[in-house]
């Protein structure tokens, strides 16, 4: 058992690594800095740079000695926008400096103190008197002044880079380091540590999802047993038809109609809020009902499959009543897929129900996720996705272990 457990845990490690890499790839590599999304289109370059520095978005992605900055974004005059050309008084051929002309770099804001910088220029004609060698390195407080040589100079592109604290001073390494400390960063929309937000959201989510899980399991198993007992007869067909119908009605419609009729028209339940247990009744009811369709069908398939086994035939031949076969033999043997299914759905307890929580104002993780998405809060979403995925991996592991514990045949394979 111990060997099985160790091997299974070792097998899960690459998955966890993959999850971390996928979230990093998605949010940092593809998504990039969310600064302008969060701060708005009119934010100053200084504010954007401060945002980047807080979130580590000003570092190279994987590794690197040098990194871009917002004080002087890269400019390639041949491809630059007209506004950029106007800022530099340049044309698409380049920036023309008259003989001996001097130019201070048009920085958006003073360079952050305590850094080393590197300036690289593409000189296409003439030469510069200063800086005399390219690329030029300099400290934050002494940005170089460009001085054209006696023949003037034409610059095609200008690139300013900040030195990182080392080759591994990168976003990826920072991400790993933060995760190792269980630090999920600071939410950009709520300005609080994401770890604290997640902890606060788990409670309300569980209050909603645990009752849904339990009710759904009990109800759907009972109904599936009825289906198996009356297999092929009217009740079975009716239940299957209703299940497919429930599966085909959109989830959102269920919530809208449930809220409207049961909450608003009939006044059976409170419509919105999170003050007492009564607030949870309607969302639990809706959540249970919508999940019923697919789980009844799933459990019915499992039970029927089990009923086709030879031991059931033997039991039938012995003359056992169907109910006894069903409860004493089939249910017991069908338990392992049921357990697997339940364990695998455990992580969804954590992610909560995205829509139910927003519709009913339950301040859980689902509600949080929707809010974070509406305010482009990459940090929070990244953390929620990551934790959810790691929990799924853990649940997978747990399911395997539970299965091995319940069913000795599993260990051998």
């Amino acid at each position, binding site marked *: 058992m111990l060997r099985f457990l160790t091997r299974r845990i070792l097998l899960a490690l690459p998955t966890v690594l993959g*999850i971390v890499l996928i979230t990093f790839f998605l949010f940092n590599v593809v998504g990039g800095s969310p600064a302008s999304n969060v701060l708005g289109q009119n934010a100053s370059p200084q504010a954007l740079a401060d945002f980047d520095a807080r979130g580590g978005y000003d570092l190279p992605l994987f590794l690197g000695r040098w990194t871009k900055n917002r004080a002087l974004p890269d400019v390639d005059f041949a491809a630059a926008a007209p506004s950029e050309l106007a800022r530099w008084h340049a044309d698409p051929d380049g920036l023309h400096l008259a003989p001996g002309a001097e130019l201070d770099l048009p920085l958006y804001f003073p360079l952050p103190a305590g850094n080393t910088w590197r300036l690289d220029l593409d000189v296409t004609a003439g030469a510069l008197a200063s800086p005399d060698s390219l690329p030029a390195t300099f400290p934050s407080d002494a940005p170089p002044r460009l001085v054209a040589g006696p023949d003037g100079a034409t610059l095609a592109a200008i690139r300013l880079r900040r030195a990182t604290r080392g080759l591994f001073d990168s976003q990826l390494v920072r991400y790993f380091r933060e995760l190792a400390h269980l630090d999920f960063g600071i939410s950009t929309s709520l300005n609080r540590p994401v770890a604290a937000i997640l902890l606060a959201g788990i409670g309300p989510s569980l209050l909603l999802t645990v009752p849904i899980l339990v009710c759904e399991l009990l109800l759907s198993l009972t109904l599936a047993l009825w289906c198996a007992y009356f297999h092929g007869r009217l009740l079975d067909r009716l239940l299957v038809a209703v299940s497919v119908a429930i599966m*085909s*009605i959109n989830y959102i419609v269920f919530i*809208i109609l449930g809220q409207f009729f049961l909450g608003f028209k009939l006044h059976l339940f409170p419509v919105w809020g999170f003050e007492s247990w009564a607030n949870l009744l309607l969302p639990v009811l809706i959540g249970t009902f919508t999940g019923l369709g697919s789980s009844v069908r*799933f459990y019915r398939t499992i039970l029927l499959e089990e009923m086709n086994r030879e031991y059931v035939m033997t039991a039938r031949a012995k003359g056992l009543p169907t109910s006894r076969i069903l409860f004493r033999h089939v249910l017991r043997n069908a338990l392992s897929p049921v357990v697997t299914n339940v364990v695998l759905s455990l992580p969804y307890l954590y992610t909560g129900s995205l829509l139910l929580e927003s519709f009913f104002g339950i301040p859980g993780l689902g509600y949080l996720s929707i809010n974070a998405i509406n305010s482009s809060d990459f940090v929070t979403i990244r953390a929620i996705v990551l934790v959810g995925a790691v929990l799924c991996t853990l649940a997978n592991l747990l399911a395997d272990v539970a299965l091995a514990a319940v069913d000795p045949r599993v260990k051998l394979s």
Partner: protein
Amino acid sequence: MTDAPATASSSPWRQLWASWPTRLCLLVVLLFTLAALVAEVARDYYLLRDLTPPWQQQDISAAYLPPSLHHPCGTDGLGRDVLLRLLQGARISFLVGIVSSLIAIPLGVLLGLLAGYYGKWLDEAVVWLCTTFAAIPGLLFVLAIALVVGKGLLGVFVALGLTTWTSTCRLIRAETLRHRSFGYAQAARALGFSSPRILFRHILPNVAHVALVSFTLRFPGAIGTEVFLSFLGIGVQNEPSWGTMLSSARLRLWQGVWWELTAVTIAIFLVVLAFNLLGDALRDALDPRLRSRPQT
């Protein structure tokens, strides 16, 4: 759905055609396709002529009209005809189902074939990728991808395509693994055929039904996810889709405007039901063994 025993002599297609619910479902899917095509042509016509299409024409004096002969599904808050908007929504749903399948299914089939056939490190890499992608909770992953890619249809396509290929990949991989050891594959190898030829000319046709079943069974999910994303406002923008219609109909329901919600609900229900039943029937006819695996 129907557990009718398959006679060995009848072809799966004939068996499918023999049951009237399946024929009905096929009819609904056909009508849905037709509606989407008509909506596409109409949209292109108005785009080409640079006219405001009738489903965008606002007429405040005709707002909130209940269903009538002139407006069979009534009008919405800006006086736009709900039926025409419903047709445009069908176009979006169809597009989402097809395009996301065009991303997910080739990806899943290709990786599954390669992993199942070549095995070794390739198999391990694909299984690792599959496990990792499958570990991320589906809806959250879709939301995250849509958020990063940006609002709009492209985000919906990419999000759906990148999150749903794993189940197809697993099924194809398992099937390829089985077929690799079959006599016909061994014979092909003994004849000295190249691996790609065996894989794509011999094995692929024998496992292709898995892709067809996957396609049909994932369509309802794709439609549902588009509705979900558009409902939240990160899906389709400035165009009528079933999700955006649901989102506006939701607020109007409280004022007693029931027809928009009803129309959208019925449309989604019929299409999703038809695809669900058709997918089940296809699976049962083509490969009942696929049934025992849990659905995602």
